[in-house]
């Protein structure tokens, strides 16, 4: 067998399962009312230097309201799990909140183009990166959710992505097959936007779950923002529909249209015009500074941002656009 290789990238978070167990032992499991404002939730659960993970996928079901609050409260030196981060990455870069990042997909907004501001931050060397892939990051979260310090996978092998990651090669003890061993990833805090949640944090996601089920389990703290808050009994009546159980949740924030300008499945489509406005504003640093000032620092609550973007009239348009994707509303 050839020699087993090792990636030279930095391991930002401790993959040790026993150390993580010590944290989880302290987590308060009791079902209690965890409703609070975004201001309170970010203030209480996201600290400078924390390693953050954002739910959803790029512009889809992202926790925009919470991400704005992270910027507004000027958090710094955050680490980040970057599995397909697009507009969410753009927001955090607008606040220059991130100092290190496990990168799978960053700086781009898919076919919409690249974020000039995010590129500037990275090309200037202000952000330490470790390379991964989308699957690798989602499997790293799964390893953490499973309480094991590593998991084998068949990706990254043979590439510079591997060489600049913190993965190492191992051999299967049964077949001799070579695998990339991926270290478990236990984020400090996850921000996840959902369709419905109860005050204790029982949450239901409709549509794609991306990596959020494992993310919620793997993270030391979990902040849920929800389009709608429902009574506990509504969630408990059909317990097989609970996507994220309250026992892993620390805070619940009511945030209607909380994913705007992203696409919330069955509820509203993405605002492509506004996303274009972001990208255009980033062309000129001065213009972008004013843009961020206006939309984030200059607002106190997320609904002020929604109003600046066209308010209810705009939201109803996006709602109609989503219904044209699927005529049937979700029940």
């Amino acid at each position, binding site marked *: 067998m050839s020699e087993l290789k090792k990636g030279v990238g930095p391991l930002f978070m401790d993959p040790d399962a026993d150390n993580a167990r010590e944290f989880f032992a302290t987590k308060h499991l009791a079902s209690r009312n965890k409703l609070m404002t975004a201001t309170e939730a970010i203030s209480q659960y996201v600290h400078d230097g924390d390693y953050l993970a954002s739910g959803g996928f*790029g512009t*889809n079901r992202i926790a925009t309201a919470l991400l704005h609050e992270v910027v507004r409260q000027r958090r710094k030196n955050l680490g980040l799990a970057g599995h397909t981060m697009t507009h969410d990455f753009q927001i955090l870069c607008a606040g220059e909140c991130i100092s290190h990042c496990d990168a799978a997909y*960053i700086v781009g907004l898919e076919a919409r183009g690249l974020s000039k501001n995010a590129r500037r931050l990275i090309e200037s060397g202000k952000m330490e990166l470790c*390379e991964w*892939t*989308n*699957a690798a990051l989602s499997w790293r979260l799964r390893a953490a959710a499973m309480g094991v310090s590593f998991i084998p996978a068949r990706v990254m092998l043979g590439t510079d992505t591997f060489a600049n990651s913190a993965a190492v090669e191992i051999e299967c003890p049964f077949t001799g097959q070579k695998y990339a061993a991926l270290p478990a990833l236990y984020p400090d805090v996850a921000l996840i936007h959902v369709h419905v949640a109860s005050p204790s944090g029982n949450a239901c996601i409709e549509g*794609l779950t991306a990596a959020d089920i494992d993310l919620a389990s793997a993270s030391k703290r979990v902040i849920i923002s929800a389009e709608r808050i429902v009574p506990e009994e509504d969630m408990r009546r059909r317990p097989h529909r609970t996507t994220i159980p309250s026992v892993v949740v620390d805070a619940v924030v009511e945030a209607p249209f909380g994913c705007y300008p992203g696409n919330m499945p069955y509820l509203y489509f993405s605002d492509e015009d506004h996303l274009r406005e972001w990208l255009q504003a980033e062309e000129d640093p001065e213009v972008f500074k004013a843009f961020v000032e206006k939309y984030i620092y200059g607002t106190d609550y997320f609904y002020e941002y929604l109003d600046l973007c066209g308010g209810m009239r705009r939201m109803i348009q996006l709602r109609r656009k989503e219904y044209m994707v699927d005529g049937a509303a979700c029940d």
Partner: protein
Amino acid sequence: MSDYNAMELMVVVAARSLPNAASVVVGTGAPCAAAMLAQKTHAPDLVVMFEAGGLGPKMRSAPVSVGDSHTFYHAIQASSMNTIMDACSRGCVDFAFLGAAQIDMFGNLNTTCIGDWKAPKTRFPGSGGGNDLASLCRHSIIMTPQDRRRFAAKLDFVTSPGYLTGKGAREAAGLPRGTGPHRVITNMAVMGYDDETCRMKVLSINEGHTREEVIENTGFELLFAEHLEVTKRPTKHELKILREEVDPTRVIIGR
């Protein structure tokens, strides 16, 4: 001269490369148009997947994001990233469409950076799911414009594996048996890979382009098929479906 443009031809060629009842992971834009066209022509049972979790949607129009609501419209399942990636790893997925800023003669792809990785001249998004799909799906297909900058002798960064350094290199690296690059579809030509050397080989040249033009626009030595053909032009039916049903607003195939 011709009654179709380069992008229309590329989408048609890509669509034809997808057999019925196969499975394919697609991205937004041209790959998605190709999959939709295949479904509406010869491959009604093609199973389309998106890496964020969309499995087998009945797409009415092309998504703007690989995770948006279009990707699971009347789908078999609105699943998760892990569900799709697990299926790829398990060997259930036949094809994947990939893009790249750079591609070399073995089909290795760079989507990470131009210049030194530590101090990049240009930073691109990185692997995303690209490395995963290139590693795990049976055949990968690239759709890209052809020019010397993009078809590079040496990549600035190997983000996703093609045949790596040549025959047997994927298996030696630990990648699944019997996987690798399958087609490169450009505005000038259609390329496959030589069975023995795993090097890129031109299979057909698009109407209006020449062998010399293809060579000029490639930064490495290309192989050519013994019986080099002219890329089969789109049929009227294919163009009609593509223009009227797949992309009526011509967002993908141009105005």
